[in-house]
C-alpha cells in the first residue's frame, strides 16, 4: 500500500505533461512542441521501473490520443514501446553522464516519432516531411531541464517522512 501511495509525483507530472501536450501555442511554435509526455515517461520508467512501466505508458498514450484526436492507439503504441525499451535498459541508461543520457533520450524520441510516422503513413494521413524531426530535437534539448525538475520532485517524494502522500 505504501508503495502505491508514493506514486503521486509520477502521476501528477504525467498529468501536467499531458496538459502541456495540448496547450495552445502559436502556429509557428506548434510544430516544435517538445514531446513532454514521452520525456516525463522516460524519466519515471528509468527511475521507478517497478512502478511505472508499459501499462502506465499505454494509458497515458490512450489519453493523449483521445485529447488530440489522433488514431486511437497510435500514441499508446509509441509510448508503450518507449517505456518497454527504457525499462529494459534502465540499469545502463541510469548511470550514464548527462551527455550520453541525452543521446539515449534522442534515440528513444526518434524511435517513438518513427512509430507514429509509420502509423500515419499506413493510415493514409498526409506525410509531413522534415517537421517530424523538430519535436525530437526540442525534446532532446529540453531533457536536462525535465530531468532536473523531476529529480527534485522525486527527492521530495522519497524523503518525505509524513504519511500524508
Amino acid at each position: 500500500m505504501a508503495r502505491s501511495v508514493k506514486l503521486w509525483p509520477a502521476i501528477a507530472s504525467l498529468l501536467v505533461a499531458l496538459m502541456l501536450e495540448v496547450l495552445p501555442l502559436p502556429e509557428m511554435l506548434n510544430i516544435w512542441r517538445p514531446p513532454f509526455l514521452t520525456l516525463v515517461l522516460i524519466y519515471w520508467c528509468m527511475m521507478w521501473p517497478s512502478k511505472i512501466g508499459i501499462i502506465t505508458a499505454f494509458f497515458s498514450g490512450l489519453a493523449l490520443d483521445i485529447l488530440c484526436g489522433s488514431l486511437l492507439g497510435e500514441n499508446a503504441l509509441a509510448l508503450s514501446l518507449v517505456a518497454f525499451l527504457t525499462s529494459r535498459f534502465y540499469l545502463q541508461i541510469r548511470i550514464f553522464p548527462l551527455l550520453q543520457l541525452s543521446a539515449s533520450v534522442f534515440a528513444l524520441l526518434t524511435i517513438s516519432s518513427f512509430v507514429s510516422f509509420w502509423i500515419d503513413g499506413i493510415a493514409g494521413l498526409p506525410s509531413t516531411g522534415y517537421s517530424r524531426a523538430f519535436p525530437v530535437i526540442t525534446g532532446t534539448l529540453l531533457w536536462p531541464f525535465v530531468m532536473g525538475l523531476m529529480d527534485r520532485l522525486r527527492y521530495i517524494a522519497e524523503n518525505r517522512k509524513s504519511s500524508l502522500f
Partner: protein
Amino acid sequence: MARSTTEHDPGLFRGSSAGLRFALIAVLCVTLMVLDQENKHLVEIRKGLSFIVQPIVYAVSAPSSASDWLFDTLSSREALQEENARLQEQQLIMSGLLQTYSALKAENNRLRALLDSTEKLSDKVLIAEIVAIDMTPFRQSVLINKGSFDGVQVGEALIDAQGVVGQVTRDRQVSAEALLITDADHAIPIELLRNRLRSIAVGTGEIDNLSLPFLPRNADIIEGDLLISSGLGDTFPAGYPVAIVSSVRSNPGQAFLEINAKPIALLNRIREVLVVKTQKPLAGLTPAADTAKPPTTTAGADE
C-alpha cells in the same frame, strides 16, 4: 542510494514478462487502431473516454476563457457603450438588408416552384466556440465547445461570419472535433459564383491555401473568382462563400490547371463558429433535382 537495491527485486523474470506484456499491449494497440480507422466500431468507446479527459480540456483552456471573462468584466463603461452603439448600428443595417433578402427569398422560392424544383429550406444554426487547445500538429483540426448533448452530429458544416470553416468529424458529449477545409485530407464541392462551373477544392495542409486540381486547361476561371459551396455531396449547405481564387497557372505540359484559392473564413483567427444544421428534405428528392439542373445552366453560361 540504498533504495535503488529495492527497486531491482522484481527483477528475476522481469525481462521476459515485460516483453510479453509489451507484445500484448502492442497487439491491443494495433487492434484499436484498425478498428478506429474503420471509424464506426469505436465511436461509443471514444465518446466515453473523451468524457474522462474532459477535465484536462477544461484545465488547459481555462486561462484563455478566464482572460476572456476578465476582459469582459473589467472593460470600461465607455468601451461597452461604444461597442453597444456600434453593434446597434450594425444590427440596423443588417435588418435593413434582411428585408430585401426575405423578399428575394420569397421570389426565389416562387421561381423555383415554377421550375418544379423543391423549395429551398433555410438552415438552422448553433453558435459554438473554439476551445483553446491544440490538436495534433499534423492535421488542421479544432475542438468546439458543443457536442452531442447539444445536438451536434458528425458531418455538420461549420461556418463563421465570412465563410465556410470545416465540418464536424467526431462528436464527443460536450465538445466536438472538426476538420478545417484546408486540411490535406479534406475536400469540399464548390462552384464558381460567376458561371456556376463546378469543381472540388482540396485542402493543402497550409492554413491559407486551397487547391483546385480537377479543372481542365480550357476552364473559364480567373484570379479573383469567388468560390461558393455547391451543396453537392450533401455535407455542406449550398451557397456559402468558401474561397477566392488567388492564382491560376497553366502548365503547357499538363492537362489540368494549377489553381490556388485563399479561404475567406479567417481560419487561424476564429473564436466563434456556427454549426449549420441542414434540414434535409425528403431523401431522394433534392439530389435528383440538383443533378438534373446544373448541366443546362453551365451549358448556357459557356455559350
